[in-house]
């Protein structure tokens, strides 16, 4: 039984990566996620598991190191924060197009531009609607606790390898910087080269007498073949949408009003809901854990029983689009958010709920 520890979300990601048996981490420091790289450097896993940790010369270099590592079948990851993730988008699109598994962590800060180093969720569109160019999706996981920061490393890698597509942990400055209790996963050994080759017959691991060469590329100049590639990607995405939707619900059984929020903001909303419930307000919370694939079926069901839905996000209203689509406009859907790195408190959430739905007020 692993001991209960106290650590920051960013530190938990680093420890979880080593324990997962990750083969490599390539990154470049940026607040508020620098502790990922710092913790990996302090732990020196190259001395123990053989995991490579490298501070690259830039975010662009780091994502292309991921591209190379992933192409050889290795479990590789990078992490950054919003402006750095923007820099990585070309590489992410290439990795998606080359059907490679990889884990990318974005500990979001306020934008656009260099913005602020305080928490934000303003990269929702970027993470869930592509980000880079072309028709692709990332599997996007939204942790709300330090425990989930640790757990989603393994989940992200496993899903990425299962579907041969990059996965992203979309966190924010709160869950990256806060400390709470965490039980780290049991350490497991890195895969041997033979295991990598058995698991990833597509990987560029050397020909070794094989009759064909494995070539990893995102380039296909023949439109008829490229369209077949696109159709294959879309089949993968459809399979992910059918099988990998994850969410958590709180107080939804009898909820007349529904709050939809992800990540640490969902916890602020949960506190608001606990306060409201104490006064008899029937309000519940749906927390999407996968932002893509989005839990649209469940939100559609809850929309049928609710009188109104409030989305709470650290942005100007991005996830609200998906909630509106999922609810098919059967009920009013309103948005409350703070921007610029400001984090709302539970009272502000309740004020927003009563402001948009005055009949909900006790």
């Amino acid at each position, binding site marked *: 039984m692993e001991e209960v520890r106290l650590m920051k979300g960013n530190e938990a990601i680093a420890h979880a990566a080593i324990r997962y048996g990750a083969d490599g981490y390539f990154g470049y420091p940026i607040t508020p996620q620098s502790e990922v790289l710092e913790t990996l450097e302090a732990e020196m896993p190259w001395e123990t598991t053989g995991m490579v940790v490298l501070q690259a010369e830039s975010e662009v270099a780091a994502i292309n190191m991921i591209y190379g590592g992933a192409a050889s079948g290795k479990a590789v990851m990078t992490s950054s924060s919003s402006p750095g993730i923007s820099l990585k988008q070309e590489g992410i699109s290439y990795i998606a197009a080359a059907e490679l598994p990889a884990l990318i962590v974005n500990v979001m800060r306020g934008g656009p531009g260099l913005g602020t180093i305080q928490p934000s969720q303003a990269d929702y569109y970027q993470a869930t609607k592509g980000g880079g160019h072309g028709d692709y999706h990332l599997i996007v996981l939204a942790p709300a606790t330090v425990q989930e920061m640790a757990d989603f490393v393994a989940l992200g890698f496993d899903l990425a390898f299962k579907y041969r597509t990059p996965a992203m942990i979309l966190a924010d400055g709160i869950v990256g910087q806060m*400390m709470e209790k965490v039980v780290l996963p049991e350490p497991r050994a890195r895969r041997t080269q033979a295991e990598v080759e058995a698991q990833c017959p597509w990987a560029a691991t050397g020909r070794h007498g094989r009759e064909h060469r494995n070539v990893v590329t995102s380039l296909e100049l023949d439109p008829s073949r490229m369209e077949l590639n696109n159709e294959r990607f879309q089949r993968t995405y459809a399979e992910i949408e059918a099988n990998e939707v994850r969410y958590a619900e709180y107080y939804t059984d009898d909820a007349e009003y529904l709050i939809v929020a992800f990540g640490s903001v969902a916890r602020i909303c949960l506190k608001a809901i606990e306060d409201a419930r104490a006064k008899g307000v029937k309000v519940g919370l749906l927390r999407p854990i996968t932002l893509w694939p989005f839990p649209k079926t469940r939100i559609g069901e809850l929309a049928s029983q609710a009188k109104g839905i409030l989305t709470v996000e650290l942005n100007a209203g991005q996830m609200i689009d998906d909630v509106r689509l999922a609810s098919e406009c059967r009920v009013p859907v309103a948005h409350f958010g703070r921007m610029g790195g400001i984090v709302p408190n539970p009272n502000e959430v309740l004020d927003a709920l009563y402001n948009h739905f005055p009949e909900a007020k006790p």
Partner: protein
Amino acid sequence: MKEEIIIAGFGGQGVLSMGKILAYAGLMNDMEVTWMPSYGPEQRGGTANVTVILSDSAISSPVLDSYDTAVILNQQSLDKFESKVKSGGTLVYDPSGIHHKPTRTDIKVVEVNAMDAMMELGNAKAYNMILLGALLGLRPVVPMDAVLRGLKKTLPERHHHLIPLNEQALLKGMSLVG
């Protein structure tokens, strides 16, 4: 039991580490804990604060707008957080550097001259432990042995010889609030 605590002062006063030791003490005491720092380009001399929540049950929001207890170490923090202590709550403050004292009468306001106590102990690094001792004297949310085990957990081994000094500072702080 649930205790929502804000500790606020200048960077360099040991605000974050005081919160960390409190959080570790909660961990040692089998409680749920969250430690949420203000983070940013703060350095020695800037303001710093940390929210620590200790609870017997799961903690929802790590971000709060009111607190059971506030430990205040400078004027800016007093101006910011005095109004955010829940009615009936506790505000501990160090008067050095405070020009306008707290005025609320619906909360327990306790002045702890940790700066003087620190001079008596003859160790500048004991400052935050004196305040933590005072806090625990007023609000015994975690037992002393859990704090000492927490200290052991947070301090690197090469600093473990300083634990008795820290214990002395904690007891000194407790004695100040009587």
